[in-house]
């Protein structure tokens, strides 16, 4: 059997690849009913052009049985779900961004007549496809050549607000336990009011003298119900009794304060013993 040399090339040899992907900001878009438009800015940090496609879908963050973040998507949301996916469009929907250039994409909303007051959600998917590197020519005409195309999608949240909206969160079932070199902290968070709760989870492990030994800050968005799991590092801490202080606040350094709905902070604490 003649040996076939099969060259499987993905975008050329081991030479540096033209990177693909863009910087997207903000990472959450808010549109109000008065203006019915928003923008998202894309920046191409790579030395090659980026081909971009923008689409919308409906989904919202949830947690799985392990307490990890996941996205629940609904292809055909019914009227019980506050979906804006069908009536928010990006302009342009397809574009090419030159290297080291930025481009602003406008998002226009055309909500149905008579839309009740409230907050409506969608997911914005920005798909980036970089330039293809040429296949290395192969002298052996019996060879097999392969090109693998990489596509990078970024999926961010979008909220459309009509009328007065408010938010809040109820905290329950706070619990903590030592697992390996961490203390796992679980809680149940249930959204109150009409708008998704966007804020920050702050957890602290405090020893018996009141000294803070480990901390965690994490952004969170509660659309319906979530049971997130967080881990506080406790690798070198002495055995004994500790407290986990847990609070959720509507403070975000990564979002314009003008779009973050304010709500009262929610706090609780739970004891944990490190063996």
């Amino acid at each position, binding site marked *: *059997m003649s*040996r*076939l*040399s*099969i*060259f*499987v*090339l*993905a*975008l*050329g*040899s*081991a030479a*540096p*690849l033209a*990177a*693909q*992907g*863009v*910087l*997207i*900001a*903000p*990472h959450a878009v808010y549109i109000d009913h008065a203006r019915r438009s928003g923008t998202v*800015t894309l*920046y191409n*940090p*790579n030395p090659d052009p980026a081909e971009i496609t923008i689409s919308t879908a409906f989904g919202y*963050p949830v947690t799985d049985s392990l307490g*990890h*973040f*996941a*996205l629940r998507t609904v292809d055909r949301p019914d009227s019980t779900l506050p979906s804006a996916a069908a009536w928010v469009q990006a302009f342009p929907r397809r574009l090419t961004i030159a290297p080291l250039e930025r481009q602003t994409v406008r998002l226009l909303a055309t909500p149905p007549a008579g839309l009740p007051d409230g907050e409506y959600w969608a*997911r914005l*998917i920005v798909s980036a496809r*970089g330039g293809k590197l040429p*296949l290395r020519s192969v002298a052996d005409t019996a*060879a*097999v*050549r*392969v*090109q*693998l*195309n*990489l*596509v*990078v*999608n*970024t*999926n*961010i*949240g979008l909220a459309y607000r009509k009328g007065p909206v408010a938010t809040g969160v109820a905290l329950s079932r706070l619990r903590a336990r030592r697992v390996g070199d961490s203390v796992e902290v679980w809680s149940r968070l249930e959204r109150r009011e009409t708008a998704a709760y966007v804020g920050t989870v702050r957890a602290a492990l405090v020893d018996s003298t009141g000294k803070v030994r480990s901390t*965690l*800050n*994490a*952004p*969170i*968005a509660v659309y319906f119900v979530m049971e997130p799991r967080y881990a506080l590092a406790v690798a070198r801490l002495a055995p004994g009794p500790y407290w986990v202080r847990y609070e959720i606040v509507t403070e975000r*350094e*990564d979002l314009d304060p003008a779009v973050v709905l304010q709500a009262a902070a929610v706090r609780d604490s739970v004891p944990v013993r490190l063996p």
Partner: protein
Amino acid sequence: MFTATKVTILALALALVAARAATAQAQNNASINVTANVFRPITVVADRNLVFGNVFPGQGPQGMALASPSAGHFAITGEPSASVSMSWVVSPLSQGANTLPLSLSGTYNTVDLPAGSNLGAFASATAATLSGGATGQLFVYVVGTVTPAANQAPGNYTGTVQLTVIYQ
């Protein structure tokens, strides 16, 4: 009368001096605003592709190691400690009716090392948390294995690997 004239002339002279001074050094000022809006972004970049090099038919699975410069590499940058979910769509390598089996595996880590947590089955999503500190980061290494059949048809095989990063 002489005194009155003197005073009047003096007043006129002073007025002329004042008028000249006012014309010579009129000072005005105005202010304008300086404005900016800072957006915190998310970035997902595929900055190194999978490169298979030469493979041979009927020799079983062939690929590369995680630490190999031929391994694929993705970098995710966002908010410190933010939760993300990664999902993959991998199309088979094909050339017309011919296909070339391809399987992928990989790891993710908050430091840029080809080690860490396994991506697991590419068919299901993987949840991860960006690093803490000033900037949240996550690095993903992907390796592939192709298994050309002994009678694998020559030609150009193409496929697509699609990574979706879902940001909360």
